[in-house]
């Protein structure tokens, strides 16, 4: 009797152990109270427009943009960080796709706009015909100027009359006229003076009946001298409108 009681006690204890062990393994952890999700920040929006979307090289296009829910906006390339809305002018050298990236607490949005740049067609490896080149070498002489002056001198008129004759003989020929100055004046003023000298030579050729469309000009001021000494002979040789022959325009 005593033994049986002992056995049944042991059985109960063992059973209990097994039961609780099993129960402990099976029992899932109490689920945490599901947190109420915070209201999700609104996703940013972004728009970007380019007007006009097609430009000639050197012209500009207006980029304008708008955004909501964004804290950080960048337009690439060329523009950089911008405000939530606005506009700016761009003048890309080549066709460019501008991308606006708007970032905010709610994520990121992108918008892009393409500016197509019409690059003036350049004929494949344009060359100056040999006969034209030879005639240019023979007939065209630079026009020289007095110190701080852009007036065509008598010797300049003679030279420019020959240049006009060359242009009449070769109606396809085009010229670049470079305005140059001597080293004595200031860099900045001479950029202006060189422009006046190039234009004085151009205007004189136009007065002789040469189309302005065949004459390009550039001023180099005193930046690209022909002679590097500091004496009057050298200075005189640097005060000039210098002619460069340009290849005929393709298709004309």
């Amino acid at each position, binding site marked *: 009797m005593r033994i049986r009681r002992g056995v049944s006690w042991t059985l109960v204890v063992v059973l209990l152990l097994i039961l609780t062990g099993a129960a402990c393994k099976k029992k899932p952890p109490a689920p945490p109270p599901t947190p109420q999700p915070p209201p999700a920040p609104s996703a940013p929006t972004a728009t970007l427009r380019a007007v006009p979307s097609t430009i000639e090289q050197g012209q500009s296009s207006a980029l304008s943009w708008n955004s909501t829910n964004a804290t950080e906006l960048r337009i690439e390339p*060329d523009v950089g960080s911008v405000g939530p809305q606005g506009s700016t002018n761009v003048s890309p050298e080549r066709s460019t796709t501008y991308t606006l990236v708007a970032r905010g607490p709610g994520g990121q949005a992108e918008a892009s706009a393409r500016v197509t740049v019409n690059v003036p067609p350049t004929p494949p490896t344009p060359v100056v015909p040999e006969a034209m080149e030879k005639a240019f070498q023979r007939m065209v002489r630079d026009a020289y100027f007095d110190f701080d002056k852009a007036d065509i001198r008598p010797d300049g008129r003679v030279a420019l009359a020959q240049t006009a004759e060359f242009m009449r003989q070769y109606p396809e020929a085009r010229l670049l006229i470079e305005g140059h100055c001597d080293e004595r004046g*200031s860099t*900045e003023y001479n950029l*202006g*003076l060189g422009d*006046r000298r190039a234009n004085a030579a151009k205007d004189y050729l136009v007065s002789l009946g040469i189309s302005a469309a065949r004459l390009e*000009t550039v001023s180099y001021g005193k930046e690209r001298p022909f002679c590097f000494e500091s004496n009057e002979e050298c200075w005189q040789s640097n005060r000039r409108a210098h002619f460069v022959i340009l290849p005929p325009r393709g298709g004309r």
Partner: protein
Amino acid sequence: MKMKLRTSLLLALLCAVAALPSVVFSQQDWFRTGTGLGVEKIRLAVPSFAARSKEVETPTGVFNSVLLNDLELSGVIELVSPSFYPLQAPTRLDELKPEAWTASPTNAHMVAFGNLQYSGNQLVVEAWLSDVRNPQAAPVLAKRYRGELTEDSARALAHQFADEIIERLSGGLPGIARTQIAFVSDRSGSKEIWAMDYDGYNQRQLTRCGFLCLTPRWSPDSTKIAYTGYERGEVPRNMIQIYSLVLNRRVAFPAYPGTTTTPAWSPDGTEIAFSSSQSGDPEIYIASADGSRTRRLTHSRGVDVSPAFNRRTGQQIAFVSDRGGSPQIYLMSADGSGVERLTSGEGYAVSPAWSPNGQLLAFAWQRSNSSFDIYVMDVATRQTVQLTRNSGRNEQPSWAPDGRHLVFQSTRSGRNQIWMMLADGSGLRQLTFEGSNTAPSWSWK
């Protein structure tokens, strides 16, 4: 000879000051600067800052030499010769013995001192400026600066401390130790835009024009430089270009037909004036800084170039014109009205540059039978003072933001180089040495 020159310059300055209404100069001390007129300069002793540990020895050497150089260049301080210093140099406030510094032969009014240490993975500078004639008063400056453990960082911290000393000892005018100078250099083989620290350190190439880039001008906020650019081509293209130092590349500005040169920023940075020959000959135009709203300001046959906005008001533009014969400096309202000639008509006057207070114009003037020299004109009275003489060709002045210093190009040492001087013509310092360097533009802040 040198003595005599000095005296005549001083006399000229005295006459100029006497002739000017006192109002004009009540706000500035540049005429007195360096000439000993009126104000006694503060005698400052700067015993070497101590290196507290081995790793800060090199940065400490840099710090000491940069600080001394900044203070010397400032022009408002008389540095006491170190041979007059007492034997014991303080490195902390409690080590300072004021009476040792005020006694003869030191006769210091102020002492700047301190130490450098390495702590918390940082370079730490402890720095004081004490008025040793008022030993009871708290130090004028008691600072702790932190930075990286590098020479550049030591240099930057020395500039910062120097600027704070200068600001205290010059009545609130800012120091210039952290300003920049842009210029044109040919040392890379083509003329490019470069920039350097105001003391000539850290010279670096900004543009890669590969051809010709000229006439740089800082935007007032120091983030951009506008300049005259050229691009190669069958027909070379010339335009104003703008380089952003924030983006490290060019930003857009439109190209115009003809020659387009010499951009200049309005003091609020919203507009750019420039010279353009789109109408046939070079005239002054103005446009928004993004290139929109282009308007023509001048209407005169001949060359009009080098516009410069009055830096304080933005309401006046000085420029160069040869409408009367030779190039001279003219003034007009920012809308193009009221054109008047400022210079006498003699010789060849170019490169106008406004002082920060909008009262003085520095310019380069070649008078008959002499070379180009730097002059300063008080615009209200047309009084003119010559700053350089008998030393090569001196052109393209540009003012420091403190109104006490000018930078310019000079051939006095051979080829064109960038030089700095005080606005009375003293304190000359050559900043560039390599290649030919021209057209300096001092940042606005």
